């Protein structure tokens, strides 16, 4: 897709007065403007770690125009060990403040002993194809990108929290601007180390720099995708339970694992059409 078209497309979504602003926005949140990343991978080898294979799939997908990709995630609950590596990896990658978690993993005990089980459920943003969160935004600061990612423009967002309420998965939270080391003898520099969300390097200069105050959510680490790297929760998944890729590529790992009889979508009945699939 041409950049100009992208702008036009978004223009049709965004209401008149906001159009000027969204022109910029189209640049900052669309991957299109980026060059294909220079990443070379070792292999392929027959028994390579699936993480490498998926990264290779990713590089292939990045060569296609944005509109032809469909990023999807499939989480194999049989392999999830409830380690929370994804949760913490994501917090660390995106320097999420207290209270903001893009990918919690819930743990639930079921059964009666000795027939007990603990069920782990990683809960990223479902990147719905029919997202209830975007339509409620009064300033059109959030929308679904053509490649499937539901994005937020931090510079547009007014922090009204409507979307937080609208999301049936609780995938959105508000950034209070607090830091974990607030109130301790020393506010640590790593907390305000730059972030790269949506491909923009941001340095927190004050308590009022975006995304402080904004709604925040998982974005499949779109900045990493741009760099030719898998989302953080995928590369760090200890159980190799998290699959990711362009589901439109029939040769990709994600396409091969997703369409199975044990596939399940979270709250599918709501008609949200999640891009995240679970394998039970």
């Amino acid at each position, binding site marked *: 897709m041409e950049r100009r078209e992208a702008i036009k497309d978004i223009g049709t979504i965004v209401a008149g007065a906001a159009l000027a*602003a969204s022109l*910029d926005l189209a640049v*900052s949140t669309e991957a299109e403007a*980026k060059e294909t990343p220079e*990443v*070379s*991978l070792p292999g392929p080898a027959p*028994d390579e*770690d699936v*993480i*490498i294979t998926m990264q290779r799939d990713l590089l292939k997908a990045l060569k296609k125009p944005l509109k032809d990709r469909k990023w999807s995630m499939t989480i*194999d609950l*049989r*392999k999830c*060990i*409830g*380690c*929370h*590596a994804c*949760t*913490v*990896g994501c*917090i*660390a*990658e995106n320097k999420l403040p207290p209270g903001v978690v893009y990918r919690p993993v819930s743990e639930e005990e079921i*059964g009666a*002993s*000795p027939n*007990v089980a603990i069920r782990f459920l990683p809960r990223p943003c479902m990147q719905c194809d029919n997202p209830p969160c975007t339509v409620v935004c009064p300033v059109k600061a959030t929308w679904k990108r053509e490649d499937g990612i539901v994005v937020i423009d931090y*510079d*547009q967002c*007014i*922090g*009204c929290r409507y979307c937080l309420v609208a999301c049936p998965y609780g995938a959105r939270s508000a950034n209070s601007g607090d830091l*974990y080391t607030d*109130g*301790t*003898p*020393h506010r640590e*520099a*790593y907390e305000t*180390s*730059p972030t*790269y969300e949506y*491909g*923009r*390097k941001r*340095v927190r200069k004050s308590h*009022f720099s*975006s995304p402080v*105050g904004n709604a925040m959510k998982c974005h499949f680490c779109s900045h*990493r995708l*741009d*760099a*030719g*790297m898998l989302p953080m929760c995928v*590369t*760090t998944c*200890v*159980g190799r339970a998290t699959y990711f890729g362009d589901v439109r590529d029939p040769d990709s790992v994600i396409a091969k694992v997703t369409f199975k009889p044990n596939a399940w979508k979270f709250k599918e009945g709501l008609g949200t059409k999640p891009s995240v699939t679970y394998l039970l």
Partner: protein
Amino acid sequence: MKRTKGVSRRDFFKTGVFLGSGLLTTSCSPRSVEGGSYDLAKPENILYSACLQCNTGCGIKVKIIDGVASKIDGSPYNPYNLVPHLKFGTDPKIVSKIDAPLCPKGQAGIQTAYDPYRLRTVLKRAGQRGENKWKTIPFDQAISEICEGGLLFKDVPGEEKRTVTGLKGIYVLKDKDVMKEMGKAVSEIMQAKEANKKKELVAAFKIRFKDNLHALIDPDHPDLGPKNNQFVFMWGRLKGGRGDLIKRFASDALGSENAHGHTTVCQGSLYFSGKAMSEQWVFDAKDKKVKWTGGNKFYWQAELENARFVAFVGANIFDANYGPTNRMSRLMQSVSSGGLKYAIIDPRFSKGASKADRWIPVKPGEDGAFALGVIRWMIENNRINAAYLRNANKGAAKKNNEPNWTNASWLVRIDNDKPQAFLRGEEIGFPAARKQYTDKETGETTPYDYPLMVVMHGGKPAAFDPYKDDSAVEGDLFVDTVIKGVRVKSSLQIIKEEAFSKSLDEWARICGVSVDDIVYIARNLTSHGRRAVADLHRGVSQHTNGFYNVICWNTVNALIGNYDYRGGFIKASTYNYTGDKTVKVKTPAGKEEQKTEQPFNFKKMAPGKLSPFGVSVIRHGVKYEDSTLFSGYPAKRPWFPLASDIYQEIIPSIGDAYPYPAKALVLYMGSPVYALPAGHTTIEVLKDVAKLPLFITIDITVGETSLYADYIFPDLTYLERWEMQGSHPNMPFKVQPVRQPVIPPIPETAKIFGEEYPISLEAFILGVAEKLRLKGFGPDGFGKGVPFTHPDHYYLRAIANVAIEGLTDGKEVPSASDDEMRLFTECRRHLPKSVFDFDRWRKAVGDDLIKKVVYVLNRGGRFEEYEKAWDGEKVKHKYGTLINLYQEKTAKVKNSMTGKSLKGYGQYLPPFRDVTDKPIDDEKEGYDLVLITSRTILHTKSRTATNYWLNAILPENYVYIHQKDAARLDLRDGDAVKVVSKSNLDGVWDIGPYRKPMTGKLKVGQAIRPGTISFFLGYGHWAYGANDIVIDGKKLRGDKRRGQGIHANAAMRVDPVLKNTPLEDVYGGSVVFYDSRVKLVKA
């Protein structure tokens, strides 16, 4: 908020527009000018190292932005992270864009380094011990005071007149020759069997060494050693490199026998049963006789990539167990492909149990009974690997293509119905073999007689040399007979009788499971050839009977014959860094010779090295009966001839001054108060300046134990320092992950020997060495003209050794290219000269080696290629020798508290015993719940409470109880409960200045065996930044988030005989975590 043209953010503030609006709390930034590239993927921003958030030590990739570690990911070079890991030769520029998995602790490690409560300078106590009042003092002053001693605390009320002996006054015997000679004489005294003979030898000793008797702790008991032994160094988590420096300092330079680790608080009895099972029947050059020696303090683990069935016994696989990143990557792969099934044998339903084929909630401490049930079933049903077990020596193993062999068929003498030593060939007319020992160093030869062992083969006795590889000897497995008047049984016969001493029903009843559970495990373990294995951990070993529990389970694995097999029971393998590894080389004359191939043999680079002697404060490695302190049973405190590093014994032994008082204690990276069961008992000793006159800790912050220190030296965290991480027994690949400084040091800089280094363990050691002019340090520390004045002089050379291993076969690592050399310095542009000075590094190893060192450091260590770890159905790095199913050395040891001989095989022993082997039956007094501990993946015992990202996930732990018990006790989910026990009736931590109730929230569920309660370790801190602390008169506020939840160790049972020590396994040395009965009281 929506951008408003022409209004800058600052204006917005000033006008206060958004103050009135509930919605507008957000940014109004103009377009960013910062640009959009992803700096975290740039090779010049990435350094590779090894994690130490837990002891697994996974590979890490630390991403540095503007000199600050911004993100930590897993390193794809390292087999702990990626399966298979990348080829070692892969260009770091390529790898910069590949991330590998890492557990959550690993990723939160940034918060360990950048902790607001880290110490930057030396603290000296300004109040009573434990009062948590401090003053900062310069490093040099601290070193002087510690070395010189004097009225160091004259400002503290009550200590005005207390003269502290400095290290100078403890470092008394300095003459290495005298020390060596005394040591030899003492060893003769100890070897003398008769009391009178001992007396004579002591008298002779006193005459011979009359000029140096003042240097002894007690001239009447020369076996206590020199006064130097009153210097004690103890540590918690310690890895290679730092460990070698401590040894060089405490033992080689200061001449103390007392440098002790923490093994027994982890899984001591696992290690020491491994040692017992790996002792070898060989000539001991020091004692000049053939004996059982050379056993390795180590253990085996399951190789998960190829296993088909695994029984995890007391092993918390998803959360701990060395460790999630490496093991779970492999386990889940096999489980999901259907290639592997596993069972969890554990009273607690661990996370791992949720993916298991079966959870078997065994009774705490009864793992040995379970194993004996399995053994019985295996023997009864002919499911033992008889062909393997019949191999009695190396020759038979070789002939039958086995990687190792056992003594299952060897004959044991039976006297008075009790198994004793192995039958020696001489006893039935087979003469000993003549052999010759050649000293590697001197080439000197010593001839000796080598007694042979005996098996029955087809009903006839055959004597043999266990290590002879050109004659295969196989033996009958079940023998009970008399040869020439000597009653003998085979080892396996003895084990069989133990297993058959109870029916399956009885074994099942003892361990609280069904017969079907035992049969299920036994059947599955014997249905996959060698690819089935029992993987054991703390849950098996940290009981009063832990040593024997482990031996029983290790025996199960031996009956399968899975040692050294893929999917079986394997050991760790590492590249050597000490430079003393020998390899076979051919001399020009065509002769084979053993030689070292690495450039820096540190053993030889130790001028003036002392040879410490004497009984240690923890009485390890020697028999009570051999010492001059022997005065009948029970001994005052237990002796541990089969174990070492008995952590729980150090402080109470100092308290009891048994076998002698200590004058100074240095504690490094440990927190016995917090980490030990009944850790509160150590506080009484630590607070007492008479019992412990000088107490120094090296810590990153003021922890629960540093709280009582006289001086605290700040330390570097794992992101700022060097270490050789080594490996773990579940890893088939040969590795040596290297931990290196990746961020600028947080502590202040000290100047020692004219060089700068951050205050740290190394600075402490070098500082004291400079002050006391210790040998092995300083301008000639590594030999004439070879300086050891900066830690780099040691670490860089150690890495050079790692790089060079394999040289003889052309297998050393390649040299870094010019490109890589450039990348190497660029990646370190943020590091100050005190830790990174390329010129200093280059000089330490020389111009040729530096490029190899760089090659290793650019990859965070050295890692063998994936394909290289396998040898057909076996692993390449084998244990490869005799496995003792019967342990003669153990059988010759007596319990120092009862005088009873130990059994040298996997026997059933009930748990819940005191040191004199008496049952503790607190349940009769209403203590109706067994308290056990567990770990969440989010925490590592005492040291991760500072990681806010982890705390955010589970801010508070809880006491987990089964619904049935909760109902019985009328307790509800969420209730606040106090944990009380017979040895802690109030259920409190008596910290000194105040008492902290042991209260936590109750969580009620089904995921535990009824009658058992559990809590996660790592919570409920009261120091470590959780409480206020006064430094230089100023109060620093604590952070409550770090102290949430309960730490119930103080409810664990104090040994009723010793009274100041937790329960312990007197055989394998483990401290006991799981044999305490408690009550819950609504708080």
